[in-house]
């Protein structure tokens, strides 16, 4: 689940608040001035008091930042707009179940004739909540049981414990999240986790026990994440018939790595965007803070979406990555990249492209993959305005390559190696959007450029996941 190409066993997204509204669906409420209030629209008002009712354990200094803007409002429309924004901010903290805004004229002894009182009536979340969800990762599903303690110390900190049982993975983890006062986008998250995964395409079983500390902060329009992660990895063979190359990788290792990721996301939705672009770049350096895995890994993702005639969308995406082992030990099978499957190059079996040994896919040190898609509404638009809007037809062209590099040669030789033996595929299918969470695809694919050793899935292929090429 999560970032798929490096086959990392990222824990479930435990950080971040639960957004109350879907970003696509939200529209700013514009209050239309009625004739009666025409007079008030131009009238200057002063916000004299802002109350927050219903606080229990939440500390007040946290909220001061979120509601500070309300005091700046100059007229009634402005007050309503700013109150709405403050309400959004309070909900984003993830500590209130409900926030209601009441705007009233000021009362009391020092009330001005044009003074207003704004009251936020909030209901805090309970101290302990449990949850039961199902989650969809990349071609796998799982059942998640969670226990959450929101706002434990009063400043929007959150402690979460999750247990997930899935078709490919079993995991549990503890996560602590703390935002900075006044800047919710800057936050720290500490995770402890144990994840087991089974990878039949490599006949590999992996158990990771680790601790990760990450620090998120925005700079201008970009979002950055700095992370330190220490993982105890245990690799084993999934079956007696695993190839010897995979058997040689069995055993224990310790990876201690520092990573940095930058994301610029202007899309309107993560699942089936209609416009906008995504640029994500990730680098990871392991080995300089302990452990025995030692490498430098780079990974990038670009996606561009553009709306065309008749409600159709053209989407282009490009993925790429490279891992450079530092020292004389080659990169471990758990760190290498994998390619192929219904979520990357369609028409090929899951992660079944590239170097392999006796049918077990070993992954590669460098890869690139590109996709060109055209999404259109269903032909004849059945169920328009309702259920039919969740489906889209899609025509695609995917291409990519995965290989090992010979690091002695220069970059020209690397590019040449990545450019030979390109696998590509084309086809058409139907996409179903599941809320804002996941996407299901049913495609008819025709794989081309198949090399010896690749496993294909030509014809109809089904895919489910969150991140597609």
């Amino acid at each position, binding site marked *: 689940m999560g970032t798929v190409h490096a086959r990392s066993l990222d824990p479930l997204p435990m950080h971040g608040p639960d957004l109350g509204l879907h970003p696509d669906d939200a529209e700013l409420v514009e209050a239309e001035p009625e004739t009666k209030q025409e007079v008030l629209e131009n009238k200057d008002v002063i916000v004299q008091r802002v109350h927050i009712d219903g606080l229990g354990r939440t500390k007040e200094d946290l909220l001061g930042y979120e509601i500070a803007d309300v005091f700046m409002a100059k007229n009634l429309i402005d007050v309503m707009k700013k109150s709405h924004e403050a309400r959004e901010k309070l909900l984003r903290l993830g500590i209130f179940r409900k926030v209601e805004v009441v705007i009233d004229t000021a009362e009391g002894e020092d009330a001005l004739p044009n003074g207003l009182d704004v009251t936020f009536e909030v209901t805090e979340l309970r101290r302990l909540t449990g949850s039961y969800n199902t989650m969809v990762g990349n071609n796998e599903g799982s059942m998640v049981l969670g226990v959450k303690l929101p706002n434990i110390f009063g400043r929007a900190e959150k402690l979460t414990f999750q247990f997930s049982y899935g078709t490919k993975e079993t995991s549990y983890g503890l996560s602590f999240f703390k935002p900075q006062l006044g800047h919710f986008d800057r936050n720290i998250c500490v995770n402890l986790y144990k994840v087991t995964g089974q990878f039949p395409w490599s006949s590999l079983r992996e158990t990771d026990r680790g601790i990760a500390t990450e620090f998120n902060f925005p700079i201008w329009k970009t979002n950055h994440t700095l992370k330190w992660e220490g993982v*105890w990895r245990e*690799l*084993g*063979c999934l079956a*007696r*018939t695993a190839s*010897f190359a995979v*058997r*040689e990788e*069995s*055993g*224990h*290792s*310790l990876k201690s790595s520092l990573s940095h990721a930058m994301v610029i996301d202007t899309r309107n939705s993560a699942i089936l965007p209609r416009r906008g672009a995504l640029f994500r770049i990730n680098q990871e350096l392991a080995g300089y803070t*302990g*452990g*025995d895995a030692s490498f430098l890994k780079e990974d990038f993702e670009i996606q561009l979406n553009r709306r065309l005639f008749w409600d159709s969308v053209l989407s282009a995406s490009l993925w790429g990555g490279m891992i450079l082992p530092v020292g004389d030990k080659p990169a471990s099978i758990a760190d290498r990249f994998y390619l192929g499957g219904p979520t990357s190059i369609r028409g090929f079996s899951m992660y079944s492209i590239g170097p392999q040994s*006796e049918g077990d896919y070993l992954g590669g040190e460098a890869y690139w993959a590109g996709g060109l898609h055209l999404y259109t509404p269903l032909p004849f638009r059945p169920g328009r305005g309702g259920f039919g809007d969740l489906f889209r037809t899609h025509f695609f062209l995917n291409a990519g390559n995965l290989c090992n590099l010979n690091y002695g040669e220069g970059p020209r030789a690397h590019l040449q190696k990545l450019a030979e033996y390109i696998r590509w595929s084309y086809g058409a299918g139907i996409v179903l959007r599941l809320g804002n969470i996941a996407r299901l695809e049913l495609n008819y694919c025709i794989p081309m450029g198949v090399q010896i050793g690749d496993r294909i899935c030509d014809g109809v292929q089904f895919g489910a996941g969150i991140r597609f090429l």
Partner: protein
Amino acid sequence: MSLAAEAFVSQIAAAEPWPENAALFQPLKDDQVLLSDCASSLAVQAYLRMCNLPVQVCCRANAEHMSPSGKVPFIHVGNQVVSELGPIVQFTKAKVVGCVSGQGLSNGPLSCKRHLQHCAEGSAVFLQGHSLSDGLDDVQRAEMKAYMELVNNMLLTAELYIQWCDEATAAQITRPRYSSPYPWPLNHILAYQKQWEVRRKMSAIGWAGKSLEQVYEDVSQCCQALSQRLGTQQYFFNKQPTELDALVFGHLFTILTTQLTSDELSDKIKSYSNLLSFCRRIEHNYFQEHERPGLDPLSIRPSLM
């Protein structure tokens, strides 16, 4: 795979001749390997040399985890992986004996024989499979199995006990050696995990309550039994070595040549002179062969047909 399918596949695989790149895997020789693992590995190496099957010894830090059963050593022959002496003996027994002559490849039956055929055209390839215990009758074979069980239950368990349950040895020798390939803090975690596992096994078989003196006493009794059986003979049965000889050699030689916190264990063995000369004899016959010039790993043996 089901048991029947696995047996079928291993029969088919056994039909291939012994390849030249057969390898034996064990933990790192200088820093990591422990007494019990070294003894098991040496027993398998001795057995394969007695069978004249060449094998290359590869040392890997993760040999224990690579092994399909979790125990070292294991051999990688063709695309088969077999671990521990018992299964390796079974595996080599099933090797088909075949030879190439002017008429082409002919296969012998799946039962074992020593076979020699010299092609009239002047080129000959000898493929040998071996069962060292062929010359034994049923009573002797049962006796051999019983003594092998004795060595496994007494000597091997005593080695494990001394390594892991004796706190002084565990702290000074075993844990540092076992965890040497791993970085901090993984080394401590793995060493303590292994120690806990071995101690649990010891209490399951009833050895947890024993004191070190009792263990030395058990070793002494075991050596006495072996010494009595060996008597003045060259090997335990007849004049040819069997897998029992390989196993006993592996354990005794390792104990004699390994430095522990105290020398009591090797002293127990040294008190039996016939065991000492037995070890020297096998070492001389099978482990110093490479010093003799011009010896082919696939050596020619007289036929018993």
